């Protein structure tokens, strides 16, 4: 079962349904007992970095999320992915969860913003399990991007600048685009992310 973090950030029906299509049960929750039953945690997110982080702080979820991130594969999607980093600069400087080194800054490009639409993935050669997704189009909607060391970037996309699209640090994964809105390709990618975070987790456990 996959637990989706409930912190009042709008509709997560599509995320839940994409998981269901892959054969996973989901639960939307903010309760520790329920998270403990889950194999993976998904941190969704829409709106701004600051607004999303404020919801987390107000609900006293920061501590619990950090605890969970140390215990299970932990996947952030869209703004949820951005929250994994140390700081965000949307509507002022805000502290993130700090699970992956880096900051979230306004996209610097000569192209139109927001970055809306289907853009193609460039998969890093250091992540061979993702090779099948190279060149595939996925749906992005955002104006801010992660700036993080290359070693954490599984795939990026070109938009007048390189934008990290999938990031991973051990069992922590982040997806900047919307896999739940990226048709079949999105579901297959979600599956890859579930697997690679799980593998990283099993590896850590065996050490």
């Amino acid at each position, binding site marked *: 079962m996959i637990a989706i973090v409930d912190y009042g950030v709008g509709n997560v029906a599509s995320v839940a349904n994409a998981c269901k299509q892959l054969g996973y049960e989901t639960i939307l929750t903010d309760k520790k007992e329920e998270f403990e039953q889950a194999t993976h945690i998904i941190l969704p997110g829409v709106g701004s970095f600051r607004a999303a982080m404020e919801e987390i702080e107000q609900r006293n979820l920061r501590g619990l999320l950090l605890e969970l991130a140390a215990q299970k594969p932990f996947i952030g999607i869209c703004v949820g992915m951005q929250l994994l980093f140390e700081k965000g600069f949307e509507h002022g400087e805000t502290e993130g969860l700090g699970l992956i080194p880096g900051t979230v800054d306004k996209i610097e490009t000569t192209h139109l913003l927001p*970055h809306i*639409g289907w*853009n*193609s993935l460039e998969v890093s050669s250091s992540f061979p399990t993702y090779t099948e997704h190279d060149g595939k*189009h996925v749906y992005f909607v955002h104006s801010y991007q992660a700036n993080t060391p290359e070693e954490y970037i599984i795939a990026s996309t070109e*938009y007048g600048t390189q934008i990290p699209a999938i990031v991973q640090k051990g069992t922590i994964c982040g997806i900047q685009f919307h896999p739940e809105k990226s048709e079949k390709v999105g579901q297959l990618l979600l599956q890859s992310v579930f697997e690679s975070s799980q593998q990283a987790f099993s590896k850590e456990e065996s050490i």
Partner: protein
Amino acid sequence: MIAKRIIPCLDVKDGTVVKGTNFVSLRELGDPVAMAAAYSKSGADEIVFLDISATHEGRATMMDIVRQTALHVFVPFTVGGGVRSLDDMTTMLQAGADKVAINSAAVAEPELITKGAEKFGSQCIVVAIDAKRFDDGWHVVTHGGRKDTGIDAIEWAKEAEARGAGEILLTSMDADGVKTGYDLSLTKAIVEEVRIPVIASGGCGSPEHITEVFQKTNVSAALAASIFHDKTFSIEEVKQSCHQEGVRIREA
């Protein structure tokens, strides 16, 4: 590189798609959700629902359609037509729509764009502009083109952007329904004046019209209704034609 988007538009009245009477196979499936799902599977990059119900019940049905679409369609979708207030936006976005399109309500109350963008983020707010050519340029028109607001369409597009619109859905009322191609001069005029994505609409009668609007303007997306509903052309055919002409599209 980002792909140009191809967007079928479904006009929904009281729970039924009203254009596209020749789209027999899907009409028999019965509903907008099935049509949206079929389009999404065949490569549509997004879906737009335009609610043209005039009744309260009709709008309530739309909410249900949105909820079902969120469960069965795995591409982004926009709802427009009946969105007149911040409450309407909340209802549709909570039901699962990715974006809302506001048209005459925004003309009547431009502050609605600002409030919507502040509350939900610019990426959720599409400002739909119906424009018509007059002697002194293009005016924003409402009521299906019958009412001239006197507002300059280019200035209105710029104001929509400044107020936080994430995209502009631009319909040429001169080209709409004529099927002789998009209004290239209007599209170009707007695209060159704003720094947010513009979706061209009105006038599409063949795949060539779609490749043409992408080649001759910097528009981000093209919307069409009848060519898809009438089964004159499929999404695949349109994408193939774009691909052959060197327009970057997403291969489904």
